[in-house]
Structure formats: C-alpha cells, structure tokens
C-alpha cells in the first residue's frame, strides 16, 4: 500500500471524496483512470483549486488537494485562510516535497515556512509524517476528521515501523534523562540514527516523533522537559514559527524553565542539491546532529 492506493481506496469507498491537483500528479497518477470525474486537475492554478475545493466542500464533498507545498501554502495562502479557514470546511491539503524534500529545486520550491503559516489559521490542523509508514497510519484519521488539514507529505520509505496512529498524540520512541530530541517529518530518520550515536557515548536519549504539530501533544513535550536535561528541536523548517516556536510557546504557557536547543534553518533558504548533499552541507546528517548536540551539552 502506498499513498495513492490508500487515497484511491478511500475515495472509491466514499462518494464524498474528490481528488484534486493543480497539475501536480506525482502522488495521484493513476487517479484519472480509476476515479473518473471525481479526479479534477485544475491546471497550474493553486488559488482556483482551493476556491473550488471550498465550493465542493460547501456541497458536502471532502476535497483532497495536491500541489507542491510552497505553491499550495503560499500562492494560495489567502484562499486557504479565507475560503477554507473562515468557513471551516473539511478541505485536506497535501503539500508535496516540503522542507528538504525539494532537494535540488532551489529556494522557489522550498517550503520551509509552511508549518508556521498553516498553523496560524484558526482550526487548521497540521500533520507531519516521518515517512511512508507513518503517513499511511495517519492519513485515514486526517481524511475522516471534519477539520481542515494541511499535511506535509513525506512518502519516503523509512526503516522504522511506527506505532498505530493515536490522534493528537506524539509517538514516544524512547525516553531519556540527558536529552530528548523532538522531531517531525523527514528528519526523523536522521534523528533515529543520531539517537544511537549519542547512546554510544553513554547518554540517555529520548526521541519523540511529534506526528501532528497542530494539535500538538503538549503533555509529551512537558514530560520530556521535566525528565531531560536538554530538549532538542529538530526540523527542516525555518526556526521562526515551527517546532522551536511551538515548544517555546508551550514552555512559556506552563511557566517551565527548560534548556531548548534548536536545530533549524535560520533566516535563509537552504543550499540546493541532491538530498544527501543538502543534509551534509546544512549539517543535518545524523553525525552532524549528534556532534552539535554533544557540543551543546558540554556548554551547559
């Protein structure tokens, strides 16, 4: 089973589903033949696609819309905020190649502010699967929810077998007294290896796959802050408005003093290249992550 097969199965079993794309067919290539007129390609028109999705949702449909994450969340932002957000319609936004996954495309294609801007919309849910397995566990809940939702699509195969999806809950991979790494999306894989590297140094390391950033599992974050000496937020997103901001907001709300070390992109777009090159250059390989965390630990 992959994303496309799951979506097709869901749509074929329920007439309410409409699959839409702004001419980004990577995830939905077989749909025109298999879904017939419930597959709608609006061409390269992110705004119109969202407006039409809102209209279809007004009529009781559940549109699942696809576009590259930066064009979906930014070109069509005001349509999402105004037509989907204000009306609180169950439109499901699938953003393709978010974060580092845009690898060699360059800054025009980098969605590294998508979490930040999508979570500002009242009622909008934000999901960030770690890999294909996580994605497939999550999507049935996303599509069945009556809420509008943005999904940072990550359909890369991973090595980890995830726990069943529990709405609003993070996936606790491990708990640790020295460090807890909080991560979402594509960097989960690197975080998992970094955890082993840090454990080899004799450290007690927690790892939490957030899964959804809105709603976010506040309890899991507070519990990690209580237990660990250092929290690390790890994300292929700008530091502003993403997980680091979310954790800062939660700790402040709970009057919790905790050391938080952000690993994110700061005030610039990342250097384009093959994904492995990007990770290396930007310092987001498991080795680089472990090294930075070790250094930070030594400084406190």
């Amino acid at each position: 089973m992959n994303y496309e097969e799951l979506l097709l199965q869901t749509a074929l079993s329920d007439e309410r589903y409409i699959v839409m794309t702004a001419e980004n067919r990577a995830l939905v290539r077989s749909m025109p033949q298999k879904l017939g007129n419930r597959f709608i390609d609006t061409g390269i028109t992110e705004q119109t696609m969202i407006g039409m999705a809102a209209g279809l949702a007004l009529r009781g449909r559940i549109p699942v819309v696809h576009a590259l994450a930066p064009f979906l969340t930014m070109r069509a932002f005001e349509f999402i905020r105004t037509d989907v957000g204000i009306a609180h319609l169950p439109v499901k936004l699938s953003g393709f190649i978010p974060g580092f996954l845009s690898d060699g495309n360059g800054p025009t294609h980098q969605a590294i502010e998508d979490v930040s801007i999508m979570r500002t919309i009242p009622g909008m849910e934000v999901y960030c699967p770690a890999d294909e397995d996580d994605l497939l566990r999550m999507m049935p809940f996303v599509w069945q929810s009556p809420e509008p939702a943005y999904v940072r699509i990550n359909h890369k195969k991973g090595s980890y077998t995830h726990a069943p999806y529990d709405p609003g809950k993070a996936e606790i991979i491990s708990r640790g007294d020295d460090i807890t790494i909080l991560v979402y999306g594509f960097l989960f894989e690197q975080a998992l290896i970094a955890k082993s590297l840090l454990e080899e140094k004799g450290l007690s390391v927690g790892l939490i796959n957030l899964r959804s950033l809105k709603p976010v599992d506040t309890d899991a974050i507070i519990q990690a802050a209580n237990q660990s000496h250092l929290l690390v937020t790890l994300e292929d997103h700008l530091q502003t408005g993403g997980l680091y901001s979310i954790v800062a907001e939660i700790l402040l709300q709970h009057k919790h003093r905790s050391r938080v070390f952000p690993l994110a992109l700061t005030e610039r777009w990342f250097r384009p290249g093959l994904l492995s090159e990007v990770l290396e250059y930007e310092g987001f390989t498991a080795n680089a992550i472990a090294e930075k965390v070790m250094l930070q630990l030594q400084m406190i």
Partner: protein
Amino acid sequence: MTKDKLSGLQDLALKVREHIIEMTAGGGCFIGASLSCVELMVYLYAEYLNIDSSNLQHPERDYLFLSKGHDVPALYGTLAELGFIEKARLKQHLLASDSIYWHPNRAIPGVEFHSGSLGHLPAVAAGVAMDCKLKGLQNRVVVITGDGELNEGSVWESLLVANAYGLNNLTILVDRNQFQANIRTEELIPLEPLVDKFTAFGCAVKRINGHDFDALEEAFLGIPFTSDRVNVIIADTVRGKGLPSIEARADRWFCAFSATEISQLLEELHGNKEARIESESLIVR
C-alpha cells in the same frame, strides 16, 4: 415582462434602495456599489433563482454568490424584503451583537459565502457548479462580481478552469458601474473591450443595461447560452443609481450620513428635491 410584474420589481427595488440609504446610518456603508446592483439582486431573487427562505438546505436549489462584497446592503435589503431575515435587523448593522457588517457573512440566512477579499467567489462558485454537474443536477449558480474586481488575476484563472470543465451552469454577472473604489476603472486599469476579454477566455457573453428588468429577464432566460461555456452577463450600471446627488461620483463610495441627510436622500429617491450632503465621504475603508 408584463406591466404588473415590472411594476412589482420596481417597487421592490425602491424598497431595497430605501434600506441601503438607511444603512448609511450608524457607521455607514458602501452605498455606491450597493445602489448600482439593486436591479440585479432584485431580479435574481424575486424572479430567476430558485432560492427562498424555506429551501436553503435543499440540494437542488440555486445559488447566488456575492463576490464584490461591498454591495451587501443591497443583498440584505433584498433578503429582508423577501423574508429571509427580519427587517429590524438592518438597523443593527455594525452592532457586535448582530452578525451584519460591511461584508457578506454566511451566518446570515441567504448569504451563501463570506466575501470581501476580491476574486475569490468565481472559484468557490465553480466548485459548487462542478458538484452540481457531477451529480447531474440542474442547479444554477450565479456570481455577482464588481468591475474593479476584474483586476484580480484569480477571476480570469477561475474562468479558464471553469470553461475547461464546461461549466455552463455557472454565470458571472458583472456589475459594470465603471468604478473601482476611488477612481474610474478606465482611468486606472482599463477593462474595455470587456466583452472581447471574456470571450477570449472562452466565455459566452452578453452585455445589457443592468437597470432594465426586461433586459435582465431576456438575458437570464437565455441561460445557458451554450452547451459548454461559462455564461457572462456584463450589466452596465450607474454607481449610486437612484440618487442624482451621488450618482457616478468617485467620492461617494463609502458614506456615513447624518439623520437629516438620510431623510433628504429618501425624499430624493422618491423624486423630490436633491439632498444637500454635507458629511464628508469616508474613502479610507
């Protein structure tokens, strides 16, 4: 159109204009854009569209989307006259205790969708029209856009898509009152030749006098114009129509009038002497 029917529609239009003028009290409203589209609104709700206060949940009723937003006093006046909402609510315009404000709010019965940000509802309406097509239903979907609103690229984008899908159950009705917010369209971003532009985007187009009920009826009874294209009706109108003292004036866009001015304007509407307007127009909305 029979004389009786015409006279009924004209009476209704007069009452809607009275409501609009009264809504310039208590904080004001976008009077110019509201007065220009009164006949459009009245004809659609009273004659053409299958929408009434009892069938709002019916899947096969028609739809009117108000994309230009500023003309919502004309819609509220029409809805009040046709029994969708209590007339008394219009006096609560801008009170936080009610839900009536300067732009359409779908919490009000009869308002299909919120608007105010221009260039959105052609796409939303295309989504509704698409669903009706998918289900093989005959609902008719009409969108009123402003002419200034046609500056927005999203209007044209949505027409490309709607025509690609043959949505001939969708009609774009342009309130061509010649004005953007503060300036004539042709002095800022010229739109003409407008029929040619819509035609080039694949639409089937008619242009009529938007204050003439006979012309409106003739145009709407011809819908769908074709088997596979979006219908466009360009309705030539006059901003501020019905009040010679404010008609076609750039500075009578958003107005908050005093009680004396309002009573003079109501007199003027009924053919008596022109009102003396001393309030400064607010052009900062």
